[in-house]
């Protein structure tokens, strides 16, 4: 019984270690870093997990006036002059992944506190 339990545990651990990233969906793992916030605007760097299905990414700032949009094929982008909503320090951004047919695979809203 102990051997079977050990074997199961070993398989589970191996699957987690080797397979975790492979099972991640697009935009499952997004990292955000904020710099240069002066009370009005900041620089925001967004990094996300790579996905083979995604060929293009659209990143936008909704709280910016006017709204801004960027496109990239990489796994990160740096936004300058990101402004928060009035009466606060929260900025609203989004990331959309597109496949090779320009169909949306997934999208994620990012609420970023610029005053970190």
């Amino acid at each position, binding site marked *: 019984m102990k*051997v079977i339990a*050990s*074997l199961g545990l*070993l*398989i589970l*651990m*191996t*699957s987690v*270690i*080797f*397979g975790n*990233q*492979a099972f991640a969906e697009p935009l499952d793992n997004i990292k955000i870093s904020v710099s240069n916030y002066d009370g009005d605007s900041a620089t925001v760097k967004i990094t996300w997990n790579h996905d*083979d*299905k995604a060929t293009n990414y659209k990143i*936008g700032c*909704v*709280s910016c*006036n006017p*709204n801004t949009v960027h496109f990239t094929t990489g796994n990160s982008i740096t936004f300058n002059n990101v402004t928060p*909503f*009035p*009466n*606060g320090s*929260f900025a*609203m951004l*989004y990331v*959309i992944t597109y*496949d*090779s*047919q320009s*169909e*949306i*695979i*997934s*999208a*994620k*809203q990012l*609420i970023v506190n610029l005053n970190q």
Partner: protein
Amino acid sequence: MNPKIVSIQRKELLQEDGMLFVRTDGILETMVKAPLILAGLIVVALTIPMQTSFSSTRTLDLIIQSDGSTHISSHIDVDSSNFELNLFGSSIDNFIAIGESGSLLSGDIIDDKAIVDTLGSSSITVDYDIHDLISKEGRVWTFSFDSPSNYSLLMPKNSVIIGMSVLPNNMEQIDEQIKLELFSGPTQIDYIFGIILESPTTNQPEYTLDFLTAGLIIGPIIAISIGAAILFKKKQSKSSSQVYVAESSEKQSESKSLDADTIFNLRPTMREDDKEIIKFISENGGQVFESDLRKKFLQPRTTMWRAVKRLERLDIVEIYKKDLQNMVKLRNDLEEEN
């Protein structure tokens, strides 16, 4: 005798030395009354519609549903028994008006207006679903609304706002939903849904064995191999130890177990069928499986078990587990019965 014809009026005017006199009493009265009458008419004209539409919105809350409809909830102060409410569109469902006492009020919807019998309530709450505020193009949904007052807007779950024509006064995140406090005036918000349940139909991706895929395949194989090796090793060591134990116990039994006659002498009151069992055990090296006894003596399981337990109580045999079976072994330290 040729009298000169002179008009009387002319005569009078001449008499007054050419001055023109006008009666001002009537004119003054007319000048005062006419604006008053006109003003009165204007007031009356304005008052008639105001009697049915005077109101002020206390709260206005909108909830966008995922199906593209919008639920509107509004608390309104009213000042007439028949209140005419301007709705924000003509596609209205589930209209409910509730008075301040909690009573349901009757209302008629005509196009984009609702006439509510307030039953004397000074404030009412109206709830309804409207389908005119959301449009959709491709995957992008657009909320368009021209509000007469400040309002709150709760976005649907998993929605991702990708464009706003105006910035909200406030924003908060409630679970998976975003709530916006917006000012009066026209607003346009574009949004999409973040989780696309149906996977887009694309060409079959070219299969490439990258590091992760290799890890996914090779990892479990390695794990299984290691596990199997451990299992095999354990089995091997266990079986060798079992063999050793069996061999040593056999040797012990061969060397130390008593023969059947000695046992019969020491236990003279033993049953005959029990003696047969002892004989069989003694002939098989001093220990046998209980199952072998059952096969030998063709006894049911319970009968044989009782016999074996009876022998155990007499301190003739001991019972222990071997390979998940009951092994019955003759004791070598049998003492004479008192």
